[in-house]
């Protein structure tokens, strides 16, 4: 059963077309990686699916229901949560308040404050501090946890590794691997290919707003990925 079906999705910033007929499906419980160079349309794709950018109604289907173009806050209600690029922690809110605001729609599920604190003791220690006082890696932990607090059916994560040290990125992917192993349907966008291929069951490579390559990580050789990535 497909959790997410995207059919010939186009997306625009004003007159500029950023996506050209993207089609892909994500199965229930599956982890999919989207890789590609800067400006290939990866983030645009997530934003269009999450309702942060306009999309045609039938271009995005969630559990068989056409939801394309619905506003972001409504899609959160339906179980789509985007962890945005650059983490976007709310500076006026403490660590704990950032987590609580993630649960704004109060969807039932296994993710609670207690569970997040059990997995990330570091966040529990600093729960009363402003969210932006945390280090970059901790802020990314907080951003992912805030997304989980929404108890989504489809978790979209944009550029986990952005601006973080490789060791920190590896830690974050270790945690993410345990989350996806529980059956969370996840789409991860990444420029840094090495970590994301470790947790993804399937990978799509975007180039210039279209899919240039897709398959299982073990079927795809490095040279094929490089060719799809850079267009050589």
């Amino acid at each position, binding site marked *: 059963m497909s959790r997410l079906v995207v059919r010939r999705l186009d997306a625009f910033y004003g007159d500029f077309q950023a996506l050209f007929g993207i089609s892909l499906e994500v199965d229930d419980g599956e982890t999919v990686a989207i890789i590609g160079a800067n400006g290939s349309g990866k983030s645009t794709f997530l934003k269009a699916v*999450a*309702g*942060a950018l306009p999309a045609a109604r039938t271009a995005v289907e969630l559990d068989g229901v056409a939801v394309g173009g619905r*506003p*972001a*806050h*409504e899609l*959160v*209600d339906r179980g789509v*949560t*985007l962890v*945005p690029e650059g983490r*976007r*922690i*709310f*500076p*006026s*809110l403490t660590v704990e*308040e950032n987590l*609580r*605001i*993630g649960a*704004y*729609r109060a969807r039932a599920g296994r993710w609670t404050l207690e569970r997040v604190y059990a997995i990330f003791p570091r966040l529990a220690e600093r729960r009363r501090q*402003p969210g*932006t006082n945390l280090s970059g890696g901790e802020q990314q932990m907080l951003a992912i946890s*805030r997304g989980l607090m*929404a108890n989504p059916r489809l978790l979209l994560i944009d550029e986990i590794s952005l601006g973080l040290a490789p060791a920190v990125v590896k830690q974050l992917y270790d945690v993410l691997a345990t989350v996806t192993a529980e059956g969370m349907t996840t789409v991860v966008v990444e420029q840094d290919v090495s970590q994301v291929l470790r947790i993804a069951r399937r990978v799509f490579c975007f180039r210039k707003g279209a899919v240039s390559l897709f398959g299982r990580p073990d079927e795809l050789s490095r040279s094929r990925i490089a060719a799809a990535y850079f267009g050589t």
Partner: protein
Amino acid sequence: MAWLDTIVQGLLLGGLYALFATGLSLIFGVMRIVNLAHGDFSILAAFLAVMLVDALALHWLLALALVVPAMALLGYVLQRTVLNRLLGRGILPPILVTFGLSIIIQNALLEAFSADSRRLNPGGIDTASLALGGGLAVGWFSLITLLVAIVVLTGLQIFIGRTQRGRAFRATADDQATAALMGIDPRGLYALAMALSLGIVAIAGVFLGVRTTFAFGSGPDRLLFAFEAVIIGGLGSLWGTLVGGAILGVAQTVGAKLSPGWGILTGHLVFLAVLLVRPQGLFARQRRLD
């Protein structure tokens, strides 16, 4: 002693200014728009109270209890039907539309209530005073106004600081696009903010109407004082608004004491001095920019 008395009167006047300023500050904080009709809404509320008092022979406090929810509802509907349409179109449309609303309200009030100055019948509370000893006395009504301002600010502080909806206000003020990704509908939130803003400014308008006379064109002055209180106190700081109102109030009463015509001018000069020395205001919240 006369000077001490002047300063105390000024501090109490600050309570009224804080009531005017709070809603303005709230709307700017959450939506980043300046409601240029804010003062006119307060005068509209005062006229509504006069109408209720005249027509139904109500006590002004009872009229207040009816006018506040009515103005809050008006704020909600106004945001849903008009102001939400202006979102994401830059800073100019909200300025033009609220400026237009200001003109519409003033002319509608002129049409409905004529150009006569009006006042709410205070029923003696305006002249009753509390002797503090040493020849110092404060008016009960001024004291009540300040207490109401403190209660309103405390209530708002608890709402914004402790409740989930209050957190949504802060998150939206920080970053509206990301707040929407948390499931927060900005339009609904803005409508709630405008309801709160007009409900609070309705309290200010009715208290103004009991304290002094007002006419259809009294709004813009109120807007100016509210602005000055917000800027002196620092944007985004609720208690700063009260301090800003108090500083403005003291400046005006001290100026008026020096010479009767200098009150308003002294208030403006102190405001300009604060702008020069500390343009972010006295209690501006430290905000990290990532």
